[in-house]
């Protein structure tokens, strides 16, 4: 029987620093993987952590890792060429086919941008495959902004809206919560528009509500959940909500299902 | 015409009261546990000879006041079932309680039913009673099941505080840290969480056993051996009230009893012969001779176990 807990080792190809605590690691990887899926990334003797895929490319996946604990702290000490341990990918991920040809709106809060970045990348590269593509991004402050380069590139082909909760000196962009910008999005046909919302629980809750207020149908709203996970394979129990295992049945959920997920 | 030897009266566990010719009888209950059937005796004495009331003493006995001194012999006869029932060392049957100097060995409920008790305090109290009573020297002894010290052992000449040496099975530990947090909050912070398992600092551990109680998986259990902390020479009073200090940690029961018995010999050697009614309190004797001399006498022929730690010096 396969031991699902055994990780493989993967070389760090590139490290990109976004903020003081957010780095993206481009990891050697060949295999099937979808945006929204995650890997259990570990450094032996330090521990494992579930990390979403933020970019998928030829022979690599990129993982954006925030330094928030023992494991991620140790990962941030790694250099290009060092090896991390990984297993996965786990979870369902986003099914790009669902969104193709539709008005698409992605609302991402903070690190919630990472799991959806693959979607945005895809449509920014293939803007013709969507009827329209809006991405709303909210960060706490200008220094927390992730993927600045990507965002700049995206803005060339799709609609991007970046906002920060609190501006600082020198920042001239949008401010305020992301929910405020939901109303600014042009939606032609609310019945068919597809919306993806990812971010902290409170942001997701209010942002989804705003979209519903805009007439978006629940079945056209998609969210991605983050929960504590130890196994990624439906055993450890930490990510279970009601009868749903986030690791198995998510982390991406249609809102019609997600709305029943009460912790 | 009352012609009463008050010293004898006091040694017979009666007391001189404010009211001329009236006494109160003291009923010592070693360890504080008794069968309720003896309540009838107390009731009868209080109603027939006293004023119908009883005072529950802080050392776990009863005082029945309002008794005519001339009725003392009758009372002593009535007390006999209690004295027999409580297995009080007595000089002769029918003569009542025989001691007043050494106070009732008091005890919290201990492990009889208290979750925190680390040993059977009632039994130890009785064992000490058997070993030292009757005795006229002024010594206060109390035994308490755990360092919560409900009996206030720290206000005694000898306070015996129950300890267990917690045994840790890392295999059963799930790292919930209930023990670690609790030890820090309620005890002495003797537990640390290292490598997802718990490490106990023996030098800080007071053997309270709270980690055992708090552990949800049975990773912590009690040691087979029971241990005792012996704290000494605490006191209330007019002169300089002070708290008892640690004399021996991780002692065994036999040693504790032997030390107490040795101390009585030390008292005989060093008591102020001029002291009023031979009533010099042991604590003041130790003040005079110094701790080292006390220690020498107390530990004579005592075989402490390998875990026992004796204080090098004590500053009260």
């Amino acid at each position: 029987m396969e031991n699902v807990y055994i990780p493989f080792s993967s070389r760090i190809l590139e490290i990109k620093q976004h903020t003081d605590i957010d780095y993206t690691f481009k990891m050697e990887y060949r295999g099937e993987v979808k945006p929204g899926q995650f890997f259990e990334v570990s450094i032996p003797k330090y521990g494992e952590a579930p990390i979403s895929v933020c970019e998928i490319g030829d022979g690599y996946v990129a993982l954006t890792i925030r330094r928030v604990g023992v494991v991620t702290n140790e990962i941030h000490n790694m250099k290009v060429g060092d090896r991390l341990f990984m297993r996965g990918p786990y979870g369902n991920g986003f099914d790009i086919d669902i969104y193709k040809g539709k008005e698409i709106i992605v609302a991402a809060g903070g690190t919630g941008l990472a799991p959806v970045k693959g979607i945005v990348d895809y449509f920014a590269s293939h803007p013709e495959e969507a009827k329209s593509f809006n991405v709303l991004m909210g960060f706490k402050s200008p220094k927390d902004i992730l993927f600045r380069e990507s965002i700049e590139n995206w803005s060339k082909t799709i609609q991007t809206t970046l906002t920060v909760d609190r501006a600082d000196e020198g920042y001239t962009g949008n401010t305020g919560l992301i929910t405020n910008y939901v109303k600014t999005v042009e939606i032609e046909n609310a019945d068919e528009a597809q919306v993806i919302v990812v971010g902290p629980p409170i942001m997701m809750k209010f942002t989804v509500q705003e979209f519903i207020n805009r007439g978006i149908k629940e079945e056209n709203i998609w969210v991605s959940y983050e929960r504590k996970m130890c196994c990624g394979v439906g055993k450890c129990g930490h990510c279970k909500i009601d009868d749903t295992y986030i690791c198995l049945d998510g982390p991406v959920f249609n809102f019609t299902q997600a709305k029943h997920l009460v912790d | 015409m009352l012609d009463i030897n008050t010293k004898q009266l006091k040694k017979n566990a009666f007391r001189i009261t404010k009211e001329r010719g009236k006494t109160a009888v003291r009923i010592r209950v070693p360890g504080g546990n008794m069968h309720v059937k003896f309540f009838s005796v107390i009731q009868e004495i209080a109603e027939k000879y006293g004023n119908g009331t009883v005072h529950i003493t802080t050392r776990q006995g009863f005082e029945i006041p309002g008794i005519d001194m001339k009725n003392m012999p009758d009372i002593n006869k009535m007390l006999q079932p209690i004295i027999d029932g409580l297995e009080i060392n007595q000089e002769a049957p029918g003569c009542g309680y025989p001691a007043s100097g050494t106070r009732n060995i008091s005890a919290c409920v201990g492990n009889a039913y208290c979750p925190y008790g680390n040993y059977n305090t009632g039994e130890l109290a009785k064992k000490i009673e058997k070993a030292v009573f009757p005795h006229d020297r002024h010594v206060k002894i109390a035994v308490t099941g755990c360092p919560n010290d409900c009996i206030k052992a720290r206000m005694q000449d000898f306070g015996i505080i129950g300890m267990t040496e917690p045994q840790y099975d890392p295999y059963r530990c799930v790292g919930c840290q209930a023990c670690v947090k609790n030890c820090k909050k309620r005890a002495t912070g003797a537990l640390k969480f290292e490598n997802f398992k718990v490490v106990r600092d023996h030098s800080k551990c007071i053997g309270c056993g709270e980690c055992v109680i708090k552990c949800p998986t049975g990773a912590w259990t009690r040691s087979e051996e029971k241990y005792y902390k012996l704290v000494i020479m605490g006191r209330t009073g007019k002169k300089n009230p002070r708290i008892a200090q640690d004399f021996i940690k991780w002692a065994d029961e036999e040693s504790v009893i032997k030390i107490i018995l040795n101390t009585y010999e030390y008292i005989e050697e060093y008591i102020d012969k001029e002291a009023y009614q031979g009533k010099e309190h042991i604590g003041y004797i130790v003040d005079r001779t110094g701790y080292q001399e006390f220690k020498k006498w107390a530990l004579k022929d005592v075989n402490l176990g390998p875990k026992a730690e004796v204080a090098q010096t004590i500053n009260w």
Partner: protein
Amino acid sequence: MGFRMDVERFDELLTELQKNYRIYAPVLLKGKGRYSETDTIRYAEINSIKDVVFDKKSVFSPKEVILPITQTLFYFTEDNVIEPKVDEKNILIFLRSCDIHAVKRLDEIYLRNRFADSYYAALRTKVKFVLMECEKSFENCFCVSMGSNRTDEYDLFVRLEDGKVYVESKNETFDGLFKDEENAEVSPKFVLENETVVKIPENLDQRVFKSKMWDEYDERCIACGRCNFVCGTCACFTMQDIFYKDNPNAGERRRVWASCMVDGFTDMAGGHSFRKKYGERMRFKVMHKVYDFNKRFGYHMCVGCGRCDDICPEYISFANAVNKLNDAMKEVE
């Protein structure tokens, strides 16, 4: 097939069995109870049937035999990952009907639910069950309500009565072992009635989350997790990676039991956590045991062994909580 033999004879066979089996049963651990001079009953290896405690319920369930409390997943030596060796022997577990049902729940999680867990499977496949019958229902048992009072999924059944051991074997593996023993009609009696009766409302659903019934537990529960740890069906674990203090180049990844009642169960690395109120945790646990497991797997998780009620230091009754769901559903309907 049934057999009858002396205790001594049975113990001889036990010794014979030990060549190929580790034999686990509930045993009395003197002085190892929570309180001074109290005992406890836990699973441990036995060498004689006399070691087995038949007349009392074990505090912890037999699950720890197949789901160890602490289980090393790998050893790390510098860059190598090494799996621990699996013990060669098979396993016999003395256990009761409810506990056999409980193992079925563990199997559901660990052998199925999309992925199979190789560590669990490695032990589980070695296990044969020795059924212990319950002469009468113990305190707090509600197996009848949960339908776990009976089972025929056992390999052996053993009864100790008046100095004789009665054995029923349902597994031909043991045919040879007992072939010389006196035949006897042996079959287990099952408890048909419990003092505690639990009724799960038929219309139970997530609406009950809104009931005020949970508030009570905010105050009463101390979130110690004992109910989970003694439970035969609770299956959660947490991962731990460590360095060895003696050589930081070596270390291991292990898992330990986790409890959804204990602080930290939902804590994410970023600091966010869920179900801070103890009443919410109680709700999560209760609903898992009698609602959502059923929703996912088609039968209830709880087997009614009552160990959670036996152990709760705050005298919270899970069984009663389940029964309160009936009124709670009326409240929220």
